């Protein structure tokens, strides 16, 4: 059996895992901010943050190349200040996957937070809890089902990310060649055996993720 397929699987899981972890923080924070604060331009900000979900991945990939590339304004600064070069690295792939999957967590979190009854938070405050404690002991636990649904979708989306990743991270076996990119390359090169193995692994992985999602939702009493 070809070991490069397993290397691609491990890399895909690593990239999707990091992207999901980052989105758990960023998406929940953004969702909470949008649900609980009122400010001018909130709808515009929501639309901008949702953009990665609807924009073609190639457009995102191009934006990323222009921004974090060696000649991009952020990329040039990172390179000169820290010597960091994101293009063609697995960290670059994580950034692409994070941005693509971000709206799924943010949207789910916003809806979940808006569904939490403010009276319960008020009651917790009356009973003497601080704002941080109210968030972690009342708001977050009550919104968790909705957020979890978004997080699982985001993991699946990050696992399947192709267009932006290919443009930003390229295709370096063992470093940035994720499962979806390996499938594309095998088909392009006419290597049907390799492609068959890779799509089998990808399909099985997705089934496992779906089963895990179902199991989690049962434990937690069902996804909304």
């Amino acid at each position, binding site marked *: 059996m070809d070991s490069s397929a397993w290397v691609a699987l491990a890399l895909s899981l690593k990239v999707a895992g990091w992207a999901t972890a980052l989105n758990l923080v960023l998406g929940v924070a953004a969702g909470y901010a949008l649900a609980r604060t009122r400010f001018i331009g909130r709808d515009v900000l929501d639309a901008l943050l949702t953009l990665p979900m609807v924009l073609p991945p190639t457009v995102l990939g191009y934006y990323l*190349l222009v921004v974090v*590339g*060696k*000649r991009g304004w952020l990329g040039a600064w990172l390179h000169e200040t820290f010597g960091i070069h994101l*293009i*063609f690295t697995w960290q670059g792939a994580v950034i692409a996957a994070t941005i693509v999957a971000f709206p799924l967590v943010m949207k789910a979190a916003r809806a979940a937070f808006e569904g939490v009854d403010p009276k319960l938070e008020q009651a917790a405050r009356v009973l003497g809890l601080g704002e941080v404690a109210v968030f972690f002991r009342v708001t977050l636990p009550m919104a968790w089902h909705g957020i979890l649904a978004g997080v699982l979708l985001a993991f699946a989306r990050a696992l399947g990310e192709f267009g932006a990743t*290919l443009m930003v991270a*390229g*295709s*370096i*076996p063992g470093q940035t060649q994720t499962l979806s990119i390996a499938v*594309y*390359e095998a*088909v*392009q*090169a*006419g*290597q049907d055996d390799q492609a068959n193995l890779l799509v089998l692994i990808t399909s099985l992985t997705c089934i496992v993720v779906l089963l895990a999602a179902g199991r989690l939702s049962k434990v937690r009493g069902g996804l909304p």
Partner: protein
Amino acid sequence: MHTRRPSLRRCLARVGLCAGLGIASLAAAAAELTVSAAASLTTAFKELGPAFEARHPGHTVRFNFAASDALLAQIAKGAPVDVFASADQDTMDKAQAQGLLVAGTRRNFANNTLVLIGPADSPVALKTLGDLARPEVKRLALGKPEGVPAGRYAKGALEAARLWPAVEAKAVYAINVRQALDYVARGEVEAGFVYATDAAAQKDKVKVAFTVPTATPISYPIAAVAGGPNAEAARKFVEFVVSPAGQAVLAKHGFQRP
């Protein structure tokens, strides 16, 4: 005043004639040719297309540019392609062996050379292939050898120079030669292997270090694809590419005569 009025019959005859001609020209116009061409031909073929259409009114040409192996994989899976132009003989040989070509239509239409390039503003001096092993060269862009002829030529040259083991870890594989060119043009890699014609297409952003000798000459074959929807138009397109008019366009883009 007396004017000559055409009889109804004559009128009808004229209408009938016009309709007949119209249908005949429609039948000719229905030839919408699909040409699958190697990525390195992108710029030149985009100019050849309208020139062919101007010479053969009623024909329209659609292009499908990708790495030669990817194009072969599509044709082998039954893609409705009329003409196939590959960047190497191996890929066309495979197509021929699989019975995908119209017998007798295969022609060599252009030659090219492989060059090593770097970003125009790069401080890294590349004098020989051996320089690629130096630490200043962190990344090297080349087409994926399994699917891109330019990548195979490059890997072959590096293997011949016994440098492949030293530079393999630096390789960034592109899905076609134009992507390798783009990586260099954006300054994301310090060096890359492309064709001389690709380098010329971005000459303000990349500089050619030197021409890389290849074991076999880089020669482009073209052929009509068996079972393509427009066999006659496909033949005409192949003829046009090898004709003086077609060759003039290719020469303008830096391709050498076969």
